[in-house]
């Protein structure tokens, strides 16, 4: 599926909920089904800076696509990472680099987009794109 379609799918899913509590509960549920990073990769190298909770993201390249696994010690943060991975994992470096993140606003998680927010969503997106950029330059 293309990034845009996945984003549409997530927006539709979240539109189903009327209040923030249900949206958060859904996000937490998504977090529970996230592809989890292997324990051995939970190292300082894969830790994302700028989060109050710990977030690890591990990238791999498979058939020209970037596949991410991740984890967090906070479950709301884990839910946020899981949503990002649903969108960005298993995509080509080019598609990842071109993708925007407006859908986060549309699913009612706008407050997490603030650069000063302690969960570091902005740092996470930046890191995912950095990995994509690194793979892209390797391919060239």
């Amino acid at each position, binding site marked *: 599926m293309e990034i845009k379609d996945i984003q549409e799918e997530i927006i539709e899913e979240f539109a189903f909920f009327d209040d*923030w*509590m249900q949206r*958060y*509960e859904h996000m*937490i549920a998504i977090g529970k089904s996230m592809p989890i990073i292997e324990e051995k990769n939970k190292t300082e190298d894969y830790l994302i800076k700028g989060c*109050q*909770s*710990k977030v690890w993201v591990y990238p791999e390249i498979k058939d020209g696509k970037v596949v991410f696994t991740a984890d967090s*010690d*906070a*479950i*709301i*943060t884990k839910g946020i990472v899981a949503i990002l991975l649903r969108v960005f994992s298993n995509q080509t470096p080019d598609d990842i680099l071109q993708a925007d993140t407006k859908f986060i606003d549309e699913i009612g998680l706008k407050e997490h987009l603030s650069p000063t927010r*302690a*969960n570091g969503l902005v740092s996470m997106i930046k890191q995912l794109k950095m990995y994509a950029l690194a793979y892209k330059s390797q391919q060239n």
Partner: protein
Amino acid sequence: MKTGIKHTSFDVEKIREDFPILNRKVNGYPLVYLDNAATSQKPRVVIDAIVDYYSNYNANIHRGVHSLSQEATDAYEKARVKIQKHFNIKNAHEVIFTSGTTHSINLVASGFKEFLKPGDELLVSAMEHHSNIVPWQMLCEQTGAILKVIPMNLNGELEMLEFVGLLSNKTKLVFVNHISNALGTINPIEEIIEKAHKVGAVVLIDGAQACAHLKPDLQALNVDFYVTSAHKMCGPTGVGMLFGKEEWLTKLPPYQGGGEMIKEVTFEKTSYAGLPHKFEAGTPNISGGIAFGVAIDYLNAIGFEKIAIYENQLLEYATKKMLEIEDLKIYGTAKNKTSVISFNIGEIHPYDIGTIVDKLGIALRTGHHCAQPIMDFYKIPGTVRASFAFYNTFHEIDTLINALQKAKRMLT
């Protein structure tokens, strides 16, 4: 100029009317502000004092001959005297206006560079805020002095016997907070000061967390340095106090060079101004200093005894209610503590709890509270902290408890 409102008896609803921010909603819910240990809210009189200064007598102080400058200087210096009287300080020139506690500590640490030699020892408590650790570590790096730690027990109380064991004629400086920001512990500073003085050590007490809850008598304490910030005691941010005994302030070199702190300047040599101006280079936070004085008047009009009694009731009620939540663990259970409760619920990350209760309009603090060594001591990544002020209510505590239960359900 307006001064403090008179409160004849403790009526929390009446007091709440003094704080405009307490009327607002956050995420659709009435604000429940329980992050008072980070900063207090400001009463109308303090906000008005800042507006009044900029609207009616804004001018630079100490140097002008014109009337406005004189009015501003008078108001600023009156604030210094208010601070002096409030803390029972012997001389007004022993009160140095700073930008806050961190600035005050850095000023003293920097000044001690020339009084220390390799092998000298500095004692810091295990429950300090980073701002009362890092400047001293920097000082040790520069001088070869050694930083030693006064340990604490699991309740978050200092081990006083170990403290005495650490004291020796090598001990030059001791710095401890009056009240811990992360645990709420009130430290036995009278005893610490007395015992440190017996070996000839100089004592600095960080009062940032204390001065909203109690009124220290600095002459009775016989402390060498006492520092605090206005913003935790209903005053504005960016202004604070350094008290130093005259003998020490005279000995310490100036911290920053600039205008205001000089007596005479030529390109060959500059002689410095006397106290307090020697440490007050540049144009200060004039409105902040004036409003600091107003905040002190405001708190005194309510009365520190009444504040302490009421806040203790809030603390007791909140502690009892919180412990009814299964798996909730409180960090910092000192016998003598103020209205700060640091806690975790089971394995739930503090960040998750903070995020959920924020959606319900409740402001709590999560994380390491700028006191990572305490978190390392308890082997936890951080805590959730609820800190209460005299304008909080029992009803707000009930709201918090309901929110925590809701968060717990969502997060487990």
